């Protein structure tokens, strides 16, 4: 990023400047050739709810519903950012499973599954991309990340941010 871009982004912090920044952030991603692969990396910040019940293991089983922003870096067909939503189940034992969906500015979606260690600071998750809609039709792939931090500001509320999110997307034939 250049200093000019950084200054521009700072201006975006003021509410009035955001439309301009938004225009500046537009790129031509999504216009590249189909049926290729793209490595991507970025960060996923989430906040949401965590509901629990006690188990005989002495730990709590939980259902999670989180949403937030996914920001990706690097050029390619994947957009530079998505609204990310995740719903998951942790049985307090070995089973953890969840589904996630990323939605871009056009409403096109990427779907997937998530699994890994308990949601806690420093723990690792892996994800499979199972499909998509619109310009992401036919997409597959996978990615992994580590929870940079996970905090619970109040009972039933959870928030976290990932670090080292890296993956590979394989594009199928877009539907439009």
């Amino acid at each position, binding site marked *: *990023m*250049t*200093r000019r*871009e*950084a200054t*521009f*982004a*700072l201006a*975006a*912090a*003021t*509410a*009035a400047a*955001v*439309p301009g*920044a*938004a*225009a500046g*952030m*537009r*790129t031509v*991603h999504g216009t590249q050739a189909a049926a290729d692969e793209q490595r991507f990396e970025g*960060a996923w*910040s989430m*906040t*949401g709810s965590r509901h629990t019940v006690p188990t005989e293991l002495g730990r709590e089983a939980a259902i999670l519903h989180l*949403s*937030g*922003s*996914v*920001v990706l*870096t690097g050029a390619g067909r994947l*957009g*530079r*950012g*998505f*609204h*990310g939503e995740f719903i998951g189940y942790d049985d307090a034992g070995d089973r953890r499973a969840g589904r996630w969906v990323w*939605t*871009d*500015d056009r*409403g096109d979606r990427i779907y997937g599954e998530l699994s890994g260690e308990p949601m806690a*600071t*420093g723990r690792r998750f892996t994800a499979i991309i199972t499909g998509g809609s619109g310009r992401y039709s036919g997409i597959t792939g996978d990615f992994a990340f580590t929870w*940079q*931090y996970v*905090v619970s*500001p109040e009972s039933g509320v959870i*928030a976290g*941010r990932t*670090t080292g999110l890296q993956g590979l997307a394989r594009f199928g034939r877009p539907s439009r």
Partner: protein
Amino acid sequence: MALWVWPAPEGLTTQAWHLFALFVGAIVAVVARALPILTSSVLALAVAVLSGTLAPSGAYSGFANGTILLIVLAFLVARAVVTCGLGQRIGHAVVSVFGRSTLGLVYSIFLVDAVIAPAFPSNTARSGVLYPITFSLAEVAGARPDNPARRRVGGLLMFSGMTSLSLSSALWLTAMAGNPLGAEIARPFGVEIGFGSWLVASSVPTLAAMMLVPFLLYKLMSPEVTATPEAPAAARRALAALGPLTRSETIVTAVFVVMVTLWGLAATLGLDSTAVAFLGLGLLLATGVLTGEDLAKEGEVLATYIWFAVLFAMSDQLNQLGFMGFLGERIAAALGGWSAAAAGLILLVAYILLHYLFVSQTAHLLALFGVFLDVGVKLGVPATPLALMLLFATNFFSVLTPQASSANLLFVGSGYLSQGELYKLGAIVTVANLLIYLAIGLPWLAIVAW
């Protein structure tokens, strides 16, 4: 409207973009004095739901938020303190010690708040204690919201209450719910913050701000009355004339002691602060100190409840739709190539400016603190000073707008300050605090925390 029709930036959903447009529109309408905050927020909510931008459950979620209910209850309990005469008694007592000048009264607010702050993990609950004292001080000083001859004295005291809460929260790790959360988020970056290390780091810049900012406010607001050398003696005579505590005053005192004790122990005992306020209000109603008729007169509470719950929900939904994280990540990512010092400064300024979009300090912290800290550290900014400066800012930016913190609302609802005055004073005081923390805090952190 222009924002609404502008295409959503890549990475944001149209839903998030439209909600942002509505939120900004509501705030701009207030700042431009086109609409009162109640009107603009209610209209924004209606458009958000009717246009399908927000689901009703999300749009109305603020009305069931515990912190917002706590404000309503604290307002009603504070009213009992004032109407039963206890507030006047407290006001005379404070004036008898600090009342030789209006500036002395202002400093007394900061002193009282700084002393009680470490026992209150909820700054909103603490505002429930500080507000009746401040309001009573204003009344004893002869100020009335509808009296132009003394309105600025009241306004000065009210904004001093807000500023005091922001600085006392910065002084103590345990004085604001977000502070320990910030310490937890900072830990993976190698930053260890405890009660003592926080106090050492915060003490010099925060105490400097507590000395300088009241004087700045005093100069900015030019109260109608400045020197009152006869006031302490008059206050002592007034206190003597009041005689012993009445039955109502005794009950309110006892209820207040119970509430303050439970609020102070809330974290230790796992008590909900709002439930403590419900208990206090229930006791006041049960003993007849407050009646249903008294509550029916408090229309201002309803207005405050509605506009704040609306803005709270809209800001929260913006966050859940990824808008805040998107903006934070984008700004942070744009700083690649800058020097560590410049990047640190830009991150701090951007972090503060973004609070115009937030209605909760904790929500702001959760959405952006980790992002900004991560990027700053990657750019070579020392982690501990950056973390501390961002966390101090999380406290002192709470006066930036009337809705910047739920702890402001009692003072905002006092009627002494217009929305325009609140925005203007909020911007000036936030800039002053930023300069103080940069000029005094950074050199101090270089000694104790680098």
